[in-house]
């Protein structure tokens, strides 16, 4: 272990934390202006160019607003609930690889905070803790609407977590691993070639059904429309965070955006090749390497891998916003029916078919 290793660890953690924190104001902007775009409105456009500084103003407003809690809440749980929601959201990112490996002075650094043995299972387990923030908030608020919100949240979580896990079983069977590092690495291989186009072995090409199931359940897990029943402002006013104001409310919003970022990163990592270079990027990499502006060719590659990862994640974040302002909200019984009677059996079938195909040697 060289002296470089702990330093690289701090750098990695710093990159992840800074990146996740930076997504919050960016997504705030994208969501508001994006929704306005789709609904033929303007959206907040007064602060700075294109309203870019609106998010900063909102943060300042949240921080300096009077932090008052209603008298009828359960103080302890009311206070910790936003933190219970936001901390697991950050923790989940720890196992997601965001670039390849870099060798400096003989020390190889993998750009992943922890390549745990249990990999994606860690993601699921930590993500499942986030729901306690919502349940706690709804219960501690001592308000019927909030309580209904948290009841819905727990029912929804249980139903969709099953499908979420099941949708990935096929993928794990094909890649023979649950480690995210291995899964991304294997996706660098070529599945088949169509003339000059080499189709990479990305998860979506081997497990299209698994991908659809994962995508739908991830919307339910992150409480985003069309599955934001716990919030449901038309029925429950604001559901679980009805009694929250100022920075505490902002923490819930932060948790939602960071969960979205983690979900997008997971979709990217599992089904879209993670940090593997985007198709046209390999040309760019060799071009920049030949320019010689950056001395280490390995570093150039890592930078472009990180860039590919960010572009892929950004697309899926935009997809979340896109869907939110396109689809109407489900009714709760429809949500439950979809989860248990459609997605769950399809997930089981997917595992069965994948097993059969592996047995036959197709995959």
């Amino acid at each position: 272990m060289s002296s470089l290793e702990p330093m690289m660890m701090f750098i990695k953690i710093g990159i992840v934390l800074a990146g996740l924190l930076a997504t919050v104001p960016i997504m705030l902007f994208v969501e508001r202006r994006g929704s306005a775009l789709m609904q033929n409105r303007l959206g907040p456009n007064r602060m700075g160019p294109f309203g870019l500084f609106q998010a900063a103003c909102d943060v300042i407003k949240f921080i300096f607003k009077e932090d008052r809690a209603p008298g009828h809440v359960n103080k302890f749980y009311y206070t910790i609930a936003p933190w219970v929601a936001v901390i697991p959201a950050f923790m989940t990112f720890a196992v997601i690889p965001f670039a390849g490996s870099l060798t400096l002075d003989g020390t190889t650094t993998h750009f992943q905070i922890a390549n745990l043995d249990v990999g994606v299972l860690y993601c699921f387990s930590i993500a499942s803790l986030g729901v306690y923030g919502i349940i706690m908030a709804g219960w501690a608020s001592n308000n019927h609407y909030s309580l209904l919100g948290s009841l819905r949240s727990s029912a929804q979580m249980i139903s969709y977590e099953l499908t979420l896990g099941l949708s990935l079983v096929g993928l794990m069977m094909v890649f023979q691993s649950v480690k995210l590092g291995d899964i991304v690495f294997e996706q660098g291989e070529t599945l088949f070639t169509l003339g000059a186009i080499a189709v990479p072995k990305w998860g979506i090409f081997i497990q299209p059904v698994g991908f659809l199931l994962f995508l739908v359940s991830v919307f339910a897990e992150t409480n985003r429309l069309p599955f934001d029943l716990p919030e449901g402002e038309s029925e429950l006013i604001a559901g679980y965070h009805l009694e929250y104001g100022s920075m505490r409310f902002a923490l819930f919003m932060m948790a939602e955006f960071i969960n979205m970022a983690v979900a997008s990163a997971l979709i990217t990592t599992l089904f879209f090749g993670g940090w593997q270079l985007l198709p046209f990027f390999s040309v760019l990499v060799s071009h920049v390497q030949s320019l010689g502006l950056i001395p280490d060719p390995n570093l150039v590659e890592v930078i472009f891998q990180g860039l590919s990862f960010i572009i892929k994640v950004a697309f899926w974040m935009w997809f979340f916003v896109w869907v939110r302002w396109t689809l109407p909200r489900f009714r709760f019984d429809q949500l439950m029916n979809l989860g248990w009677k459609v997605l769950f059996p399809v997930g089981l079938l997917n595992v069965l078919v994948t097993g059969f195909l592996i047995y036959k040697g197709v995959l």
Partner: protein
Amino acid sequence: MIDYPLLAFSAFSTIAILGSLMVIFKKNPVASAFALVAVFFSFAGLYALMSAHLVAALQILVYTGAIMVLFVFVIMLLNQDRPVEDFKSSSGIFKLLSGIAVSGFVFALVKVALLARSLTPRGDMTEEKISELGGNVKAIAESLFSDHVLQFEITSFLILAAIVATIALAKRKAHSGRGHS
């Protein structure tokens, strides 16, 4: 140099013990359930400290993430307006007897634990052997689906039977309920 594993162990075990006490002493069932969540979470931390990452992940995934969510859901759904029960009115002799019984149980538990350690042999799984087999997940999966596949299948069959029985009971109640109305 700070001994990080010891620090983590102290933190997790403290949370586990305090949480367990809160599970017992909290009068509100939902608060008890939340304390139990904390206990399960710190258990997972302890497992992870023992390099049993898979057990830790499953502990959180199954107990904290699924079973406790269900518990909290049921408690919140059924226990809405029930007044908090007061257990302070029990008699002095009852308190004394229960105190003796609890300390006796704890003593017996420690005794059994010590005895069991000498009776049961340690398995042949060392950390080197696990990493040689390809990590926790692979080692457990392979042993589960080769040496212990019969037990695994019987367990899943039992669970299936339990599910069928639950559905049968629930359906019968629903049916008779319709019959009355």
